[in-house]
């Protein structure tokens, strides 16, 4: 039995609700769909007991009615655990994980700026990556966002 299977078993043993939601598409890759309420337990278990000590990044997804967040965790030996949570778009509130991973700070700010997630407990700081005068309520990575592209028009000679 491979290490991935092992981790899958351990996860299911601890969290029964994960039994149907873990897939292993290839070696060293584990995807798990986690209910948003249980996310912190799973994260804590994965980081402390299973040795997933590296946070690769956090991906934000627009899934229609919900916003999805994938936390890409990795072990020192290259095994990756991708925890996928979904929250309602009307109230896209997630808790910060920067207490576990200080580096998550930047990734979470990205979610705030680009997807309009509300991250609870995010330490104060500059916004990233959009400019300070970016209009409120505009979230570029949402599927319904259509920024008006200002074309560089033809330059008239000696205007």
């Amino acid at each position, binding site marked *: 039995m491979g290490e991935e299977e092992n981790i899958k078993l351990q996860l299911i043993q601890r969290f029964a609700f994960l039994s149907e939601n873990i897939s292993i*598409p*290839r070696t*060293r*890759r584990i*995807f798990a769909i986690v209910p948003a309420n249980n996310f912190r337990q799973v994260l804590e278990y994965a980081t402390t007991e299973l040795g997933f*000590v*590296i*946070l*690769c*990044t956090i*991906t*934000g*997804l*627009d899934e229609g009615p919900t916003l999805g967040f*994938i936390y*890409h965790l*990795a072990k*020192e*030996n*290259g095994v*990756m655990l*991708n925890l996928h949570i979904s929250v309602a778009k009307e109230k896209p509130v997630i808790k910060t994980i920067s207490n576990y*991973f*200080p*580096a998550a*700070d*930047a*990734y979470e700010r990205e979610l705030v700026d*680009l997807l309009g997630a509300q991250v609870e407990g995010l330490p104060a*700081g*500059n*916004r*990233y*990556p*959009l*400019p300070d*005068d*970016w*209009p409120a309520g*505009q979230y*570029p*990575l949402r*599927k319904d*966002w259509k*920024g*008006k*592209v*200002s074309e*560089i*028009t033809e*330059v*008239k*000679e*000696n*205007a």
Partner: protein
Amino acid sequence: MPERNFKVSIGPQHPALKEPESFLLTLRGEKITEMTVRLGYNHRGVEKACEGRSYIQCLYLIERVCGICSHSHATCFIQAVEEIAGLAVPKRAQYIRTLIAELERIHSHLLWLGVAGHEIGFDTLLMYTWRDREAVMDILALLTGNRVNYGMNTIGGVRRDITPDQIPQILTAIDALEERTKYYVKVGTEEITLRERLSGVGTLSKEDATRLGAVGPTARASGVDRDTRRDDPYAAYGELDFRVITDNHNDVYGRTLVRLGELMESYKLVRQILKQMPEGPISVKAPRKVPAGEAVSRYEAPRGEDVHYVKANGTEKPERVKVRAPTLANVQVVSHMLKDGYLADMPIVIAAIDPCFSCTDRMISIVDTDRNTANTIEWNELRSIGINWYRKQGIDFTELNRNFKIARELK
């Protein structure tokens, strides 16, 4: 030195920074007491743009996320796409990708060495390393056609094969570079002013490196033994034999040694790849539509681990592409390293993570002219403001332009 607090804004435009980003430093004399970082000046909306393009178009867009590590991003992205599409990339293509990857690492590390020299006022080192770097740039141009943005990858393989007559040329260049790198190791370890400026600067303990999630040579110089090439092998790395260089100096000097060591390893790797490269096809036919699915791809770029996440929805275009460039993981680390350092060490500490902010930010904001009129000037408007300003000063380029035009037409 006056003992009062200065606020110094380094950036968005500053000679020490090759790309726009802003560091607000609070100084007490020459010591940095506080600093905040503001990134995002290079935000070009690449991730959003990918959603409106087909996979092959995305590939060239992703390749242009960064000039220096263009192959890294392209390969990382293409690996994820191939994984979703279930394409079996031919062995030879894997080897060619690895070869370009290592050549890219060589040119990137030599570039870094020069930049590091420049940041501490040692321009001679810059001139010499960049001169020698031309050897590897020539090889890259020979193999791929271009010095950067190689365009080597395509979905399902690579676009250009390595011909037998190119191999001796690569080997000669690598031998010459190895000689030179040995010399730079000597310069780095023996030249006293260089050592003085690098040692004990920007220290980062192993604990902090792990806690803050440092990646790449920055982490490895603090004794964190992580390298995606070994830990999560991709392309041909699983079949190659190489050492992961770590160092325990925990400072900029250590980072220099790690990069120099990695250069030496890369030379060995290039020789190995050329020796072991199997014969065979270089690509498989790829479908235009990629079945629904998701994949995460990791890649050890010269600056550290690059992570791409691709989600496909069964159409020609990806549903979501996420790029995590190595520098973003290291920004936190820089803030930590600069605390209580000297202003004079600021450039080299920032340079020591080999920052690449264009990678990090990835996205010009697609300016919404309706809402943002006050702050945005159209190109034409800007141009006419410029021309009129000069006219007011009594300088008019119209005549000059006309003469120029006539001269060109005559030619």
